Structure formats: C-alpha cells, structure tokens
C-alpha cells in the first residue's frame, strides 16, 4: 500500500514537471512579445529593449526555464506582468475562495438534482421516468454553458431588473462576497446544469449494479421494504463512487471553470487564467496552468487511492 502511494506521488511530481516544461515551451513559441505588450503601443523600441532586459526575457529559453523551475521549487511563481507586478502565488490564492465557493455550490446543486433522478431512473430502468430523465440529461449536456449563462443574465439579471425592478441578481460580480448568494446563484446554476447529467448517469449506473447485487436480492427475499432496500442499502453503497466522482470534479472544476467565470465575471481563477492568455501575462498563465494541473493530479491521486483502498471489486464494498 505504501509503496503504491509512494509510486503514485513520485509519478504525480513527474507529471507536474512535464506540464511545467511543456507549458513553458508553449509560452516561448507564442508570437507575442510580452515586453512590447507591457511597454504599450507608444514605447520607443529602445524602451522595449530595456524592459525586455530588466524582465530577463532576453535570456535563453533554457535559462529562463531553469530559473522558473527553481522558483517553483521555492514556491515562487514569479510576478504578474500586469497589476503592477503582484506575486502570482498571491493572485491565485486570493482568487481561490471565489472559485471554491462556486465549485462547491455547483457540485452540491448538481448532486441535489442528479442523485434523486439517478436513483429513480435506476429503480425502474426503461420506464417512462427513466426515459424522461435521459432526455432531460441530454438536453442539459447539449447546452453550451456560456449560452445558458448569457440567457440567464439576460432574463434574470437584466430583464427582471429592467421590467420589474427586481434586483435579486447582480449583472456583474465586481466584489467577491462569500455571503452574496444572489451573485452566486446564476453561475452556480449554470455550473450545476453542466455537471448534473454526469451525476445522473453515474448514479444510475452504480445504483443499477447495486440493485442487482447479491445482498439486495437477499434483502428483498427477506421482505425488507423496497424503500429501505433502495435508500438504506443500495444507495449508501453507491454513495462512495458518486462522492469520489464529485471529489474528482472539484479538482477539475477548480482547475478552471473558465467559461462560466468569464460569462458572469466571477472573480475566480478561471477568469484569471482566461485573461492571462489574452493579455499575454505569461507568469500568471504559467501559474494558473500549473495550479489547474496540480489540482487535477491531486484529484486523480485521491481517486486512485480511494479505489485502491476499497478494492476494485465492488462486491467487497459491503461486507
């Protein structure tokens, strides 16, 4: 067990390293000149050169990569080219709570919607309820989240305010306030819509297996009421893979709900990442890429450990 853990951790570190190098190479191949972008359209070429020198952008790629990796080892991710040179680590950590709250709410909503539908569908596979759930699921999966976001903003934040004076939902989130549920509502709903179909599917699949397993057959034979069979037994055992899925999702979602944060101008990491790409803010870009990767790697690690601990054979989950 420990050996497995150690191997996975070592591998994860390697993955992070590989990602750093690849991302760095990417930024190097970019046609843009960050020194020029910083200097602005009116700087003289001599000024651009000086800026390039002072930022160390004229050194060889290998040298720059080396310096960057050394910095990363010390948890120093450089400073942003914008915002007056704020440390990237601070920027990212500062935006983390906002993305975290959005991620948590979105996943919670998706679970709240997906679990019951999944369980109900699993209870009667092939029934009308099941089919409706499937269609619903397909609809949700097909809607691009940015489109849904735009429509929600237009309908609830704009029109509701314009025509009825109901200012429940802000049009934009300029300040992150963890207690501002009105501002959280629309983006969380949009995220939930994107995630729900998968929870429905996972729940349904796992529940179907549980409901066909030996102990359920036994319980039914013993006359245990169906409701208890479904919820107290099957569902509890199904919960583990579902929760693992959700935990992994947290990793992904944190890694970058880029689109949703952009549409709602939610001041989180996704928005930071998107802006860093368009504004050629390379340190921030690298930082957010690495951070997203880190989260995904950690999430995978946790999932692998969970599965290893609990033995791949599902039958062993319940004594």
């Amino acid at each position: 067990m420990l050996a497995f853990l150690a191997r996975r951790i070592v591998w994860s570190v390697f993955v992070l390293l590989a990602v750093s190098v690849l991302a760095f190479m990417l930024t190097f191949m970019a046609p843009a000149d960050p020194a020029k972008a910083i200097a602005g359209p009116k700087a003289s070429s001599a000024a651009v050169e000086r800026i390039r020198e002072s930022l160390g952008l004229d050194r060889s790629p290998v040298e720059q990569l080396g310096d960057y990796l050394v910095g990363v080892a010390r948890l120093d991710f450089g400073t942003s080219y914008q915002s007056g040179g704020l440390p990237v680590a601070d920027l990212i950590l500062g935006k983390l709570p906002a993305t975290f709250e959005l991620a948590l709410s979105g996943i919670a909503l998706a679970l709240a919607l997906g679990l019951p539908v999944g369980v109900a569908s699993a209870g009667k596979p092939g029934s009308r309820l099941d089919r409706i759930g499937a269609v619903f699921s397909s609809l949700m999966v097909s809607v691009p989240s940015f489109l849904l976001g735009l429509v929600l903003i237009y309908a609830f934040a704009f029109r509701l305010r314009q025509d009825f004076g109901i200012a429940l939902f802000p049009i934009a989130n300029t300040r992150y306030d963890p207690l501002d549920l009105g501002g959280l509502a629309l983006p969380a709903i949009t995220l939930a819509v994107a995630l729900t179909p998968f929870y429905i599917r996972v729940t349904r699949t796992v529940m179907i297996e549980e409901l066909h397993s030996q102990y359920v057959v036994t319980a039914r034979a013993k006359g245990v009421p169906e409701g208890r069979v479904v919820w107290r037994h099957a569902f509890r055992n199904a919960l583990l893979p579902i929760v693992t899925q959700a935990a992994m999702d947290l990793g992904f979602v944190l890694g970058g709900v880029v689109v949703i944060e952009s549409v709602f101008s939610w001041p989180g990491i996704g928005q930071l990442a998107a802006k860093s790409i368009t504004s050629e803010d390379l340190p921030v870009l690298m930082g957010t890429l690495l951070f997203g990767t880190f989260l995904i790697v950690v999430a995978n690690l946790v999932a692998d450990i969970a599965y290893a601990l609990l033995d791949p054979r599902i039958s062993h989950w319940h004594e």
Partner: protein
Amino acid sequence: MDRRFPRTAALTAALLTTTALAIGPVAAQEEGAPSGTLTITFDSEVDSLDPALGYDFVSWPAERLIYETLVTYDEGTTLVPQLAERMPEISDDGLTYTFTLREGVDFVRGGEVVRPMTADDVVFSLNRVLRPDLLPHPSPVSEAFFASIAGADAVIDGSAETAEGLQALDERTVQITLSAPDRTFINALATPFGSVMPMEAGYDATESFADPVGTGPYYLESYTPGELAVFTANPHYWGDAPEAGTIDYALLVPEETGVQEAMAGESDIDGDNLPTPIYQQVKDDPAYADRLHRQSQLSFQYLSIDSSAEDSPLSDVRVRQAMAHAIDKENILRLAAGRGTIANCLFPPELPGFDAACDPYPYDVDRAKALMAEAGVEGFSTQLYTDTSELSGLVAESMAADLAEIGIDVEVITQDFDTLLGTITVPHQAPLVSIGWFADFPDPSNFIDPILSCAAAVEGGANSSWWCDPDIDTQAAEARSIPSIEDAIPVYQDIQRRIMEQVPLVPLYNDTWTTLTSERLTGLDELHPIWLWELAKYGVDG
C-alpha cells in the same frame, strides 16, 4: 470636597462630548465636505498605479487622483499651473524652464500627512522615469517624453544616476534644462509621467503601487487586484476639496455589464466606451439624453500599409493611393454607429493644426482601378491584421471587401491587442494593419513623430508602415523646436500634406468617445478632451 462635584463634572463632560459629537459631523457636512461614493467601472485591469509605468486610460485617471504634476490642463487644452505656483519662466533660447513650487502642499499616505513637498522631490520624480533600474521594469517612455532633458541619455543608459538638466535650486525652485528646444516638453510634464512623488518612494514600482504617497485630492484606501480600487478624499488636500468622499474603481467588469450597471444606476460612470450596438440603441432615447456624454478625441483610426516591403506591390505609391481611393469610409462610420467623423488626413478636428481642406483621396473606385492599372498591378494577396474587438473585425472585413473590388485579396487576421502589438512591431511582419492612435497631448508632433518618423521605423517601434522619409523627418524635428504652436501649425500642415502624398497609411475616422453615467452624478458637463473624466470634480447626489 463636595462629593457631588465629580459626578456633576462627569455628567457635564458627557453631555458636552455627546453634543460635540452630534454637532461635529453636521458642521462638517454643512461645510460641503466630500461625501458619497462614486463608482466607475472598467473592463480591464489597472496596468499600474505607478506614474512612471501606468500608460492606459484605466490607470491614468486613477493616477491623477493620487498624484499631481507641475502643470496640467484646464477644461480644454490650455496648460495651467498645478503644483507649480505659476507657469514657468522660459529662457530666451528655449532651453531652461524655471518652476516655482506652490507652498502648503503635503504628501499624504493613507489620509495622513507625511511631509511637505519640496523641489528635490520633483527632481527625484523626473529622474525616476529615466532610470533603467526601475523595478519591475523601466518606464516605457523615458526617451519618448523626457529625452530632451540635458543629461537624460546618461541616466537612461545607466552611466549617471541623475540628469544634470534637473536641478533643485532651493526648496521651492526647480530648474529644468533641455539639450535642445522642445515645445512639447511642457506637455510631457502635464502627463501623469510628470507626477511628483516623495524621494522615499524609491525605485520599486510594486511597492509604490501598493503604498502610494502623493499630493492629490484622493489617496488609495485599498486595492484588490482585478476587482476594486478604493480612493478616499484627502482631508489635507491643498486645493479645492473634491466632491465625492470615496471613489470606487471597479475593475474587470465586462463591457456589457458595465453599461447595464450604469443604466440601472448601480454605478455612476461606465468607464468603457459604449459598445456600438448599445450606443445605437440609446443614442436617440430621451431617457438617456442627459446621461450620454460624447467627446471627440485626439485620435484617429487608420490602415497602415507596409510601404517598404521589398518585392511587394504595396511599395508602389500608386497602389497605396488606389487603396486609399477604394475604401468606403462612410460604411466604416456606419459600422461604428456614426460615432465619429471621417478622417481624410492625419490630424483630428480637436487638434490645433487640423486642416479641413486636406482631402487628397475621396472615395472613388474607378479612380482606384485606374491607378492600379497605371501601376501595372492586376491583383495580389495580402494580410490585414487587427485586434479582436467586434468593431475592429467589422471594419477590417468592410475594407477587405472594398479592396477585393480592385483586385486585392485580403486575408483578415485578428489577434488580441497585446499579441497584435508584438506582431506589428516586427518589421514587415504585418503588411496591413487596422489600428488606432491616441495622442498623449494636443500637439501635431504627437501624430507624426511616434508613428511616422524614421526613428520609429525599427523593431519595436510604432511605425507599422515601416516608412521613412529623411527630408520630412528633418522638417518634423525642426518643427518641434518652434516655441509657439501658432507658428508651428503651418509647418505641420505642410508636413501633413507631404506625408499624405505618399500614403504610408490611410486615415479612416476620428473616434468620438461616449460615456454613460448615472442620474445622480453631478459636476459633469462635458468630457475632457484629453483626460475624458475629471473624477475629482464629480460628485454624487443623494
């Protein structure tokens, strides 16, 4: 000792204190102290609050809240003294400027006085813009604005710590000596790059960004990157107290949402130019009539043509003239919802030196075709680069269709503005560029030197036409030293005509900036031609 005395005294003291506390704020309000919170929203982030670095329309108004310059503009384009007591004395040879500083000006940090401003601070601040060791990187405008100061080169290349042309004669007197007469120098001093900081500010812009110390009507209360900067009225300000008690600078608010917030009155000023579709909708709506403010700008949108690319048809002046005749500028203006005026030459209407008679290339497709035939060019392919904004894309496609009519097949390539800057400053990388130029100050030289001089036609420079005419260059350099602008205007108009004969670029239109404000905003009659907003003069009702 009377036992009751302490109690009575205490009671009386309490009564008096309470009364004082009650009256105090009321008294202050009656005096018209700054009150209320004014909110302005922007789509982008603040570049930097450090005056040596900040160089966009988001950073400048913020810097102008905290910092001040020796001279500034009045409601128009006339220079008036600010931190200087009066306009400087200029020597006869135009080389020496002597400023007497105002008394009673204090540096303020977090609302507390630090110390009075002195001449040494002015010298320090100007040197700072020249210093190559400024962190995180040196100022982008060291040469562009302040190269004319004697000894500036030495500072820029690191061989000197201070410029010999910057001297503090005494506590209140600053003397600046130029190496050559430069009429525009005093305009440069009026830009935020000429802001006065205390000597203790040092050479690390990150620190000064986080903890700015200035003389202005506001001080920085807090800054959350990418979200909000809060400015509070400076209680120790030397001049007229500002109107608003607090100014909230809301950042990274997308354009559309910024508009909606201003419409709903949730913010007071939409800091971004109104998006075209929304302008189209509100421009004739009486509900917004007095909340919509327009200002014709010192700028122009143009199509630059790589005129020195070898083996390219674009290097033939007749082809460029054909292109100028082929572009339908009416359609372009229509795409911008009519916000602006068609530009036939370089100088915009607001600029001293504007020549309404300059119109060498009216829209004439037949003439264009004739010129192409004359040049013996059947047709060719090329690329047009522009940024990713909606309007830029539309304008580019409109021009592409126009040029297709005369046989030029144009591929439109859009890049993010920052990327675009990097692309177009590499010589001959971008044959055609559709871009805008915004002047820094109201002087014709600012429309020629940065974008059409030989010095700018090098890697990293802004001359994306890669066009260089040494004769015109010399003429422009001489014109810059003419001390009075009235005398300089005829020279510049001649230069403009000569440049247009060679068509290194096709002027398209001059922008009109449009701002939407809330109903409760007070103090805004007209936008400022250079600064757009004068936030310190605006207040909020209620």
